[in-house]
């Protein structure tokens, strides 16, 4: 079964303005009145927040299963379609749907439901375009999942990661895209710890894979890439490294290879510490965070220093490509992986992925993607990309973030924070966002087009 695009709703961003209903009505109804909208926003009087009544385009739609006339059916495009020729106006479907996604329209004289504007505005549902607050998003990542799903999974099944860790997601999806003509380096850490290189004579992947030292990943890949190139072969030199192997003890070799412009795709999976060895502090650990080596006691309250901004340090090396990405925004990650892979044939490409650690950061294993998304939406982890010729670009709006505390309160490692520590982190997050804002706004300068621009994350279309 293929996945399909969907309209996602974020209650925290909805202020009940109703613009979505107006837009829908003018696109889909005969009289243009909001009463005819196929999306309705509904206020929950108890919580005061807003919800929506709209077709979810369910995988196994109840409306269709209860329809006695087979007038409703899920199509190959994922949309549950209504067939006027077959409908007998019994309205049983409106009782079958628990989301308020199909309703009788007095003006039309039959049931109506959302079709994601697949007729006149395919690919651009009008309600989403009208939502100024970003509470509605048209999520098309499913297109990419489908395409990636057809590529070979080059990791063996059953890797031994912690429950809920997003690293396996990163590993499988990255290697599917990069493909078999690859040599993969996984320096000591969670990634080989999950068995990617193998254990006791067993093998972990279907591409050539090895343990570099924790310190020399980019250097070993330098030799591998250059030797194959010398023999006329275009072999992708790929690293999947943790933040310690990239930014702490491994930073010298990383910096050297980036400075030399080696043709390497280096992916840093940043879980902000030495999580494979029991959650010790790294240079990437947040200020105030508990780790096994920055414990909480009478005279210490977690890490005493801010994290270094490794992706920005890499940008200043003048790499071909540098970007940050998150597994909560897979479509953005895919687009950046694509760009990084292409850039790695010309020079150094660096991709920094935020990887919430269920065990080391102390949060429930089901919450990984939620934590990752909240990190981005609070500006704790800003998504951006840098291209040598274009400068730095923000991948999504950072001017209206959620409060940083929304992120901090999700994680046990921040449970002990006092008001001053929280204020410190808030200030740091704001400063980092401002630095990125200013870098993105830089104007072209002598002989080099450094242009800041802001793209709509959701407008990225890999098919183009």
């Amino acid at each position: 079964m293929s996945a399909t695009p969907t309209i996602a709703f974020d209650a925290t961003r909805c202020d009940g303005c109703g613009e979505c209903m107006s837009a829908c009505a003018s696109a889909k109804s005969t009289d243009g009145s909001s009463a005819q909208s196929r999306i309705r926003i509904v206020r929950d009087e108890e919580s005061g927040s807003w919800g929506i009544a709209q077709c979810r385009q369910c995988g196994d739609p109840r409306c269709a299963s209860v329809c006695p006339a087979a007038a409703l059916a899920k199509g190959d495009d994922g949309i549950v379609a209504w067939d006027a020729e077959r409908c007998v106006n019994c309205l049983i479907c409106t009782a079958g749907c628990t989301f308020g996604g199909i309703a009788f329209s007095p003006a039309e004289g039959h049931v109506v439901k959302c079709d994601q504007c697949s007729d006149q505005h395919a690919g651009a549902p009008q309600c989403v375009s009208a939502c100024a607050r970003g509470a509605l998003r048209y999520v098309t990542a499913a297109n990419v999942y489908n395409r990636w799903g057809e590529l070979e999974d080059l990791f063996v099944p059953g890797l031994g990661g912690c429950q809920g860790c997003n690293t396996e997601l990163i590993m499988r999806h990255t290697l599917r895209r990069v493909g078999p003509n690859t040599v993969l380096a996984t320096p000591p850490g969670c990634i080989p710890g999950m068995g990617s290189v193998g254990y006791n004579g067993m093998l972990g992947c279907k591409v050539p894979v090895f343990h570099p030292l924790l310190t020399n990943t980019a250097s070993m890949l330098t030799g591998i890439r250059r030797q194959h190139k010398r023999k006329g072969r275009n072999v992708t030199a790929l690293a999947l490294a943790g933040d310690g192997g990239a930014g702490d003890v491994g930073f010298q070799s990383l910096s050297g290879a980036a400075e030399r412009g080696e043709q390497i795709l280096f992916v840093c999976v940043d879980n902000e510490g030495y999580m494979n060895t029991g959650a010790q502090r790294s240079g990437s650990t947040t200020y105030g965070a508990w780790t096994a080596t920055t414990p909480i006691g009478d005279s210490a309250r977690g890490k005493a220093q801010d994290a270094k901004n490794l992706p920005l340090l890499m940008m200043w090396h003048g790499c071909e490509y540098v970007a940050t990405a998150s597994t909560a925004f897979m479509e953005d990650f895919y687009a950046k992986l694509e760009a990084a892979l292409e850039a790695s044939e010309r020079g150094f490409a660096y991709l920094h992925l935020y990887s919430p650690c269920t065990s080391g950061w102390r949060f429930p294993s089901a919450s990984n993607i939620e934590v990752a998304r909240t990190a981005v939406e609070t500006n704790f982890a800003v998504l951006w990309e840098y291209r040598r010729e274009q400068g730095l670009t923000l991948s999504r709006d950072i001017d209206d973030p959620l409060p940083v505390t929304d992120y901090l309160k999700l994680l046990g490692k921040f449970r002990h924070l006092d008001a001053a520590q929280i204020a410190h982190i808030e200030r740091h997050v704001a400063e980092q966002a401002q630095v990125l804002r200013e870098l993105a706004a830089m104007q072209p300068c002598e002989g080099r087009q450094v242009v800041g621009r802001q793209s709509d994350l959701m407008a990225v279309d890999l098919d183009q």
Partner: protein
Amino acid sequence: MNEVAEMTAPVAEPASGRNAPACDAAVTRKEPKVLVCDGNEAAAWGVVLSRPDMVAVYPITPQSSLAEYVAQFVADGVLDAELVEAEGEHSVLSVLHGAALAGARTYTASCGQGLAFMFEPYFRTPNLRLPIVMSIVNRDGITPQCVWGGQQDAMTVREVGWVQLFCETVQEVLDTIVMAYRIAEDRSVMLPVNVNHDGNYLSNGIVRIELPDQAEVDDFLGTPDVNWHAALDPDRPMGVDPLTGGATGPGPALFVGYRRGHCEGMQNALRVIVEVHEEWARRFGRRYAPLVEEYRLDGADHALVTIGSMAGAAKDAVDAARERGERVGLIRIKTLRPFPVDAMVAALDKVQAVGVVDRAVSYGWNSGPVHQETLAALQYCRHRIPCLSLIGGLAGADLTQAHFERAIAETAKLFDGPCPRTPVWLNAEDR
């Protein structure tokens, strides 16, 4: 830098005398190119002749001019190799790990602190069985601060599992670098080789040398045979160096298999080193003692044991002593790792006392490292003979003929009394 073409001149007469290696007269070969250069340039020519695919370098005194020569040769098109100017010695060797696993013949050079910094990948190199050739332009260790010659660097890493060869002359440096590839890439060996040449004495000492013909060297070396056992190549996908199992599953046997295989490769190297030196003598006319050189041991009752370039001055001292009627000879170790036990025992069995001169310190035994090696070899000798430790030439200190005459005298004293348990520090009074 010397242009070879301009330096090509007929050789007036065959090299002869004590410091020239013995020639095989029957060999017919092309008129050799001749140049006048120091040991670092000679090493660089050895690299050119060996045609590595990849060279990674990082400068360090007294190796720097060697790195510069190689870089210039690449820039001039004399050497067709990928040159990686890495950001440190740690990366230098790491680049070569990757390159070798991708099939490259590789070379680098370092010493002293550079070797210390390189230690992490250095330790791993022989365990991966990568036939990398690396010069060590021997330098003493800091602290105290020094940039001068000494062998503390190579001696400190002698248990890491590299093949370690020590050269006496500039010509031997060039020849041994080429031979090192044959030894390293031999399928029964598959180990990295350090070609040691003393910093200052050999790195900067300028002499006349002969340059072997490229086509003959090509024929001698054959094509690189580097990653048949372990490769990082999408055409032969495999996991390189997966985690072993500790005490579980096949873990212990796996690990022992690696270690035992490594030891066997080292022992095979003893045979291969001899064979390769023999073939070199046949093809190129220069013969070196591959493992242990015996110098004037016939009729000797005591001997000095030396390693590296100091043998030159030591042989002068032995010659002088012989003229005075003293029955002294010299044993020079060329191959320190694998330790040539049989060759060493054969030499030691010819004398009744030895004085071992080290250019490094073994702190744990209050003597020199080669002294310790000699003591161990004595276990297999017919008789227990006294074995004195002498330490000199640290941090560039001169080891002159006078120092070795004293060393001979101190060794001769072993016939008159007990062997001291403390070393003789040869430069202790030098100002």
